[in-house]
């Protein structure tokens, strides 16, 4: 790994961590556990496209540590839920990018898949933590919510690539 690449990946961790933390501070007007904008997924998807899924997974895990530390909820239930959601959605988006991207979906579709998997993973962890399968009644509301957030994230990634100077990455 050369130094330039290391610096850029570090920068992505910092950006994603801050996005994650800021998102924790912004209360959404929906009383549903686990609902968030998923802005940090912009970084995850961008890194999958630029450097591949291994780096994206490492960045996602590091940003959960950094983001929950900054938001003051590290090692609580929110941490476990974010961790599961980040890992699951990064892997889902990586699979999506590899096998479905060119043929079927644009980045927006991949990002919606990521948001969906993120919510399902978080809700599964929530169900285990409170030992109640009734938590899954929130799933339709979360699915409905993951469509707009996934689209916003996907559009964000698309514009990021449009504005990205060609010579900065490598």
């Amino acid at each position: 790994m050369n130094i330039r690449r290391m610096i850029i990946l570090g920068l992505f961790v910092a950006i994603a961590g801050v996005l994650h933390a800021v998102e924790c501070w912004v209360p959404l007007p929906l009383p549903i556990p686990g609902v968030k904008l998923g802005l940090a997924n912009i970084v995850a998807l961008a890194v999958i496209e630029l450097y591949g899924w291994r780096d994206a997974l490492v960045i996602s895990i590091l940003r959960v540590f950094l983001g929950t530390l900054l938001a003051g909820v590290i090692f609580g239930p929110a941490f476990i839920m974010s961790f599961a959601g980040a890992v699951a959605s990064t892997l889902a988006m990586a699979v999506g990018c590899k096998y479905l991207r060119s043929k079927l979906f644009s980045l927006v579709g991949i990002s919606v898949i990521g948001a969906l998997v993120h919510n399902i993973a978080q809700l599964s962890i929530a169900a285990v933590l409170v030992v109640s399968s009734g938590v899954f009644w929130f799933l339709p509301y979360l699915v409905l919510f993951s469509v707009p957030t996934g689209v916003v994230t996907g559009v964000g990634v698309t514009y990021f690539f449009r504005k990205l100077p060609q010579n900065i990455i490598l």
Partner: protein
Amino acid sequence: MRLTLADKVLIGGLIVVAIIGIGWHVTLNSRFRGQTAEIYKDGRLIDSLVLRSNYRQVVRVGTETDYDIIESDNGRVRVVEADCPDQLCVRMGWINSAPAEIVCMPNRVVVKVVSKERSDIDEIAR
């Protein structure tokens, strides 16, 4: 910025599935009026409140520092106060019919409304 056909099918499909799910939840809710509210902590039933009109009951569950104060009033139940950081359980407000439930993730407390049908089945099972 253009969406492919698969994107549109995915987005449309998810919206339809979500709306069907929400509709199902809402219909179930309107059919089964709750009679009791069961309070679970860490998956164990620790208390239950009676849901009846003109009847009010308040309980406090948890420890000195991690607590939830739960109130039933006039056939409805809510979390009045909790010391969790996100306060989602408090913001969920009143619920009054099965299978609605309030979840307090940080304290791992679930408040579940149980209707008569459901508790009958439970009694037979016992």
